[in-house]
């Protein structure tokens, strides 16, 4: 089993890596590229902690092979802030105490960003169903929903 060379784009930057053909994108991001903001909670697509965008589409990076990143554009939590300026979702999560342990937070932020790109003015129910694949065990989701709604409102008025 020889490794495969992959050329891709991550958070807007060109990236090359080699990976095993059966290696999940999650492992590539974490172990080969040092993007440990992408978290592994289950490895089977059941928790959403490893959420990233591939060509704008929200996916679990544990359910994508690294080799599938060839020619793709990938976005992770590490690419959300612009230099010193946090994304409105990131700031809202801090302001609303929408994280406790914080391990689900990167995945939820990436997922919420994808939601607001598609639907800038979601109902609470739409937020909850969109984020149903992102497990959070600390917050009971209440403050997460509020933070997403606050960020959405800010982004609409920006």
């Amino acid at each position, binding site marked *: 089993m020889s490794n495969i060379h992959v050329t891709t784009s991550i958070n807007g930057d060109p990236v090359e890596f080699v990976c095993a053909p059966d290696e999940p994108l999650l492992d590539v991001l974490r172990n080969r590229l040092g993007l440990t903001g992408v978290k592994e909670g289950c490895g089977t697509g059941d928790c959403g902690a490893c959420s990233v965008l591939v060509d704008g589409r929200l996916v679990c990076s544990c359910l994508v092979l690294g080799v599938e990143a060839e020619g793709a554009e990938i976005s992770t939590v590490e690419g959300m802030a612009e230099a010193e300026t946090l994304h409105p979702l990131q700031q809202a999560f801090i302001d609303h105490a929408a994280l406790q342990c914080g391990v689900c937070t990167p995945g939820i932020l990436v997922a919420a960003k994808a939601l607001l790109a598609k639907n800038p003015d979601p109902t609470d129910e739409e937020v909850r169903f969109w984020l149903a694949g992102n497990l959070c*065990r600390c917050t009971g*989701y209440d403050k997460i929903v509020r933070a997403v709604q606050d960020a959405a409102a800010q982004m609409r008025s920006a």
Partner: protein
Amino acid sequence: MALDSNGKRVFKVVGTRPARPDGVDKVTGRALYGADVSAPGMLVGRILRSPHAHARIVSIDTSAAEAMQGVKAVITSRDFAVVEDASTRDVQVNCMADGKALYDGHAVAAVAATSAAVAKAALKAIKVIYEVLPHVTDVDAAMKAGSPVVQASRAVENVPKGFSENVTHHCEFGHGDVAAGFAKADKIVSRSFKTAATHQGYIEPHACLASMTSDGKADLWCCTQGQFNVRSLCASIMGMEASQLRVTASEIGGGFGGKTTVFIEPVALALSKKAGRPVKVVMTRDEVFKATGPTVSTSIDVKIGMTKDGRITAAEAHMRYSGGAFPCGTVDMGAMAGFAAYDLPAVRTYGWNALTNRPKEAAYRAPGAPQAIYAVESVVDELCQVLKLDPLDVRLLNAARKGTQSSYGPVFDDIGLVATLEAAKAHPHYHAPLGAGQARGLSCGFWFNFGGNTCVSLNVNTDGTVGVTEGNPDIGGSRASISLMAAEELGIPYDRIRTIIADTASLGHNDVTDGSRVTFSVGLATIKAAQDAIRKMCGRAAKIWGIDEEAVEWIDGAAVPAGPNAGKFPPMSLAEIAAVSFQTGGPIAGHHEFNADGAGVSFGVHLVDLEVDKETGATKILRYTVFQDAGKAVHPAYVEGQMQGGAVQGIGWALNEEYIYGADGRLQNAGFLDYRVPVASDLPMIDTVILEIPNPGHPYGVRGVGETPIVPPLAAISNGVSRATGVRMSELPMSPPRVLKAIMARG
């Protein structure tokens, strides 16, 4: 210290909601959790686990694995020290089976290899010969004489005769003449309950990086609720001196009690020792479910007598808990907590623990209490239904208060139960109309809260900022609350303080982050350490002013002369004193270490509105309100967070979460797909009402908050479902098939 018109302390920063110090790291992905660090030359550690619920390990042949290219170490139980202390030995044997595999997923060997692929192949190459033994996973079955014996000769001296050898522990609590009490009752309800084992379900799997060198020194990075406890356990299990092992706690991706002990850390150390290289071990999710510490599973009988006007005359409970394959004292907590909310003339609780072929129990938020209180609160609710009494009025009538002899012995000091019940009664939620097919459930909850060993250093920097060094991993925002208390005491802004969590070499021992102890104990130690630093700063000001140290006091972040006789000097702020500290005697630091007591018990009341789909048995939570006495809420947003998070874990426990074992004794649902924690779309907003009944044991009145909220949801939801369906529910979880079966049996 300023007081308001009611004589309560007025706070400047405590009670505000500033941004948490670890917030930016966590929203940008920079925070480092257990699996996020690497070391040069690091190997991948993997663990081989028993596929059997109960089996004698006849032999383990590791030779083929050891011969594989890239395999650097293979270990079994032989690679650990001989441990004398029984409870530590249990932890060791839980980390690596010794002679017998006691549950599905029990570790039997481990490898360290140059890649995950090689490690995986090496596990396959290890040949284990098992002699499969009969198994038992049900607590009631395990207690019966003749049941398969999980471990022989583990019972303590107080276990009555006539049970299986699996029964390791017995306890009894209470006071008063129970028989006479029941004789006075107009109505007695007796009912038996069962609750399934649940898992804390933290999103971060256990992970650690161990590096041990040939001179016997080791460093261990791991996600844990208590690095000092990890050090104690690992040092014993490895036969090391504590000073040779430095443990650093990573950011922790949830614990809830489940990360208070060790599972993989000794294994990683043993692999690193043998391989002579750093070894990282990260559990997969199915390993987390199979081989970490779920809750006890229980079987409980409750009997309560009540007069027709709602006064409880006597109460009794028999509680049978199983903490898995090792002795477990959690039933003590259940038996003590079960009736804690009530002022009872006669009460008795009896508890037993039985061994089963399940993983060793670990703590989960208020360990032992949710199950017991679920059973008690269900029977109280049933009595209210039968006697047509308002369930809140009945609880108020019987509520424990200051001076009540608790069901577990001590007399209560200031407690917030009555205030909490009254707040619930006055709340619009309790009076909101219910739609057709909807019902309302409620329950009280209780937890003891603990203090414990605590050690804090507080360093005043020359630029007027302050570093607080504490030793308890922050699992819910405690660095923010510790900084708030330091700021309050010192009289400086919150953002001048940075609180960090020390490794085991940098600070004295701190107990595990458990028992809702951190904001209380570490906060108290921080306040004392700040006072220590303040004394020193007053001393420096006194020297500068040339007056007696006693003539200086600390007001609003500055040293000032105490009264007109002390002399007339302008106040010297903390920053001003710090700036000249090198010239006035050297660095300024405060310190405090103690074993904290007086944490102050905590009560909560939860209200839930729900509806049950009578054709499918599915329960939908419509509205949920948590009322809890938090003492002084230091950072209210994180107090709310504890209340909301605990409530939702309780909702999951009530409705869907359970360990499901097959007839073969193997765990059927070791993953988030079929171990069903609540998802966002299952829930409404969780409203919170914080009551602040000051804890007399803390200068700011702080009580523990984190555990009580998981207690009431079980019964609140069960009571709601029982009222919605007209059938009294008595088993958790109330999964749709179970509820539908009850509805159909009623006809």
